[in-house]
């Protein structure tokens, strides 16, 4: 191609030409990257804001009969509060470690049951049978006045 204004009687200067091409191409690539980077970063959402809550009031004393359980909100995730037949409070994460279903307390089994694939956990959250690969996270429970306070265990 002889573009207007280029003197074709002179032989091309390969080196100089390569350099110009390199600078031009590199510059274009760099600016394309600088447009794409913000977009890619923008698409990934920031971590959700409500992870901060490490302590939550899960209910009032007397809400639960012995040998029963209920779901409470722990941040954006469900938790399971169990009042055992021995009148003890236990709190667990209610998200099954298998495929994220929400578990429930079964008063006939005295155990925690996941309906999705028949996973069973004991009252300490250990996975006893069925597909769940890991135990449920268990939380600390304190009774303060008539409030049942659930706290995430501090990682050692």
């Amino acid at each position, binding site marked *: 191609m002889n573009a207007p204004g280029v003197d074709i009687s002179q032989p091309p200067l390969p080196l100089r030409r390569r350099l110009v091409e390199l600078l031009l191409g590199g510059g274009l690539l760099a600016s394309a990257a600088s447009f794409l980077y913000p977009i890619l970063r923008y698409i990934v959402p*920031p971590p959700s804001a409500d992870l901060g809550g490490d302590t939550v009031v899960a209910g009032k004393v007397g809400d639960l009969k012995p040998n029963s359980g209920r779901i409470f909100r722990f941040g954006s995730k469900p938790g399971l509060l169990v009042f055992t037949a021995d009148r003890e409070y236990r709190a667990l994460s209610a998200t099954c470690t298998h495929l994220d279903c929400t578990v429930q307390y079964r008063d006939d089994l005295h155990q925690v049951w996941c309906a999705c694939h028949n996973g069973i956990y004991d009252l300490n959250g250990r996975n006893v049978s069925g597909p769940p690969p890991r135990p449920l996270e268990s939380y600390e429970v304190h009774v303060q006045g008539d409030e049942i306070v659930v706290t995430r265990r501090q990682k050692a």
Partner: protein
Amino acid sequence: MRLATHVRDWLDERFGWDELTHFLRKKTVPVHRYSYWYFLGGMTLFLFLVQVLTGILLLLYYRPTANEAFESVQYVMTRVPFGWLIRSVHSWAANLMILFAFAHMFSVLFLRAYRKPRELTWVSGMVLLLLAMGFGFSGYLLPWNTLAFFATKVGTDIVRQVPVVGHWLMIFLRGGEEVTGATLSRFFGLHVAVLPGITTMLLLVHLLLVQRFGISVPPGEEAAWRARPPEKREMPFFPNFLLRELMAWYVALGVLGALAALAPWELGTKADAFAPAPAGIKPEWYFLWMFQTLKLIPAKLGPLDGEMVGVLAFGVAGLLWLLLPFFDRGDGRNARWIAGAGVFALVYMASMSVYGYLAP
């Protein structure tokens, strides 16, 4: 490059690639001292594309309800990485797009590019300009901040002045008697679905017409070329003009980024239907000249409502403007009239805007 030729051959066998791209290789752009004005339409198109892209990105986080809209935009501005950049570019490009659309319109007017056979290109372009203003008006409300809330109240109330159907129109726009969350839902639907759909179709028509009729040469240049044919100069659209255009777009992108970084778009305070309007409330700059005109008309003109007369006058003026090409018979006298009207409109809009900006 082997792969590229392969793909080309493959497409050529099936679609007749050379035939399809024939128009591109044949297309030329006239070269003369007014050639720079040819960039305005392409620049408007580029800014529209920026709006489509950033608009889709904003949709990832935006929530169109009265309870969440403001907070979701705030979230974008403060917490999402580069959210401030995306939103500010969207706002800046919106304003620049309107500016370039107006500039494009006036350049077409003064270069008389609307003449036969391009009357319908003008009409489609004018409707696109109206749609662009519709985008501006509907998008302005979406952050649900105080200014937007009252601007929408005023804007939709002006619609009420239209004779006979005015009240119905206002209810239609507001989704009720008042500006509420229902209005927000409507404007959101208009802004992200209805207007983009219509605009895209009309844009295709506009571009096809431009392609069909070629690029207009101003009558003066055309006459000079006819008198001395060797002076006629053109450049191929592809790649010569397109590369120049891409360069302009690249610069525009840089300008947009700089504007967004140096002057991120404000969010203001959340709309409150039960708070009084802030002092000195004004519409976006491209509505300001109309707003100011309506303010200057006395409340009563004889038996008629001043506002209503103003709204009617704008309607008639807009319609005449839309049909402008049909008044140009090609002889010099009509053309001078039209150029005069163009100058008048430009001066009127500019001075009213300045007045509206300075007025308390």
